[in-house]
């Protein structure tokens, strides 16, 4: 067991160090979510709990948005899960590195998977082969980012009531999605998926219970896949 200590220390320190710059973006996002909970007027404890149970900003904000629109329970959960389907991609990409981990690590670590943790780990795993260092890196980075997210949520909830009415809090919710979608527009299929997704969501705005978002998402994925298939390689 003492032989593992340097590897544990190396992985954990590298993970936490990698998470620090990510906090610059994670904290205000958590803050925006906390403020959004206050603005939505829902039970703040339940809203804060979502940062522990879901731990995914985009999905949590979409749930808030749909709760405000009185969407049905099924639509709210389905929208959150559709948004979080991108984690399946990270899961696929990280699976080979996770394979040598003990079963309890393979079961526990995915809870901490976020966009930032997955991206940092994929980069780190390219240079680091030791599974002990790898898993402690993921734990350090994942926990570091999660803690910042939780703190941001609490601060946002606390400050929410104190923020002057001259600041348009309601704008923070669509704004977060705008800043999240821009980095995903990396090629023609992704751009097509976004344009079609947004366009169909608007065109089907009359659908009840926020179903226009699911309609837009489905149309966007189909349109993007068609362009991906047709474009020259």
């Amino acid at each position, binding site marked *: 067991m003492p032989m593992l200590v340097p590897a544990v220390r190396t992985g954990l320190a590298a993970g936490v160090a990698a998470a620090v710059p990510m906090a610059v*973006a994670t904290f*205000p996002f958590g803050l925006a979510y906390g403020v959004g909970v206050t603005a939505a007027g829902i039970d703040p404890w339940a*809203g804060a709990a979502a940062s522990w149970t879901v731990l995914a900003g985009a999905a949590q904000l979409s749930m808030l948005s749909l709760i405000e629109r009185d969407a049905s329970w099924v639509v709210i959960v389905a929208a959150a899960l559709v948004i979080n389907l991108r984690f399946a991609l990270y899961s696929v990409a990280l699976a080979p590195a996770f394979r040598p981990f003990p079963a309890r690590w*393979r079961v526990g670590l995915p809870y901490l998977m976020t966009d930032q943790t997955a991206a940092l780990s994929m980069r780190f795993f390219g240079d680091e082969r030791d599974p002990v260092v790898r898993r402690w890196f993921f734990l350090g980075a994942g926990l570091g980012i999660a803690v910042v997210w939780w703190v941001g949520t609490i601060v946002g909830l606390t400050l929410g009531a104190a923020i002057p009415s001259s600041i348009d809090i309601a*704008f*923070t919710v669509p704004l977060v999605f*705008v*800043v999240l979608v821009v980095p995903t527009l990396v090629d023609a299929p992704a751009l097509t998926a976004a344009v079609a997704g947004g366009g169909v969501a608007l065109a089907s705005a009359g659908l009840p219970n926020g179903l226009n978002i699911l309609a837009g998402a489905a149309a966007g994925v189909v349109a993007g896949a068609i362009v991906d298939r047709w474009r020259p390689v």
Partner: protein
Amino acid sequence: MRLWGLFVTAGVGTYLIRASAILAVGHGLVIPAGLERTLRLIAPAVLAAISANGLLLDQGAFNTRASWYAGAALAIWIVARWRSASWGMAGAMALVWLLQQAGIR
């Protein structure tokens, strides 16, 4: 109580998505390349649908708040130019505040 149920259900579902391939590949499953390419389109499609819904619509009608459009445009420019979500949000919020202080809704 309904809210707690919502957030716990979404949390359990999200965990299962996160763990899906990691646990399945641990048992020898191989993901088809075509499906992997399609999965990466989910993020832009969903995020754009939510963005359009939240930004352009207000109670089912078109949103007429010009300050929001200006703020969103600035955020897009900042994020595209400097890859910083934080600065994009800060700049957009500042611009919306300034415009609204100037009487532009």
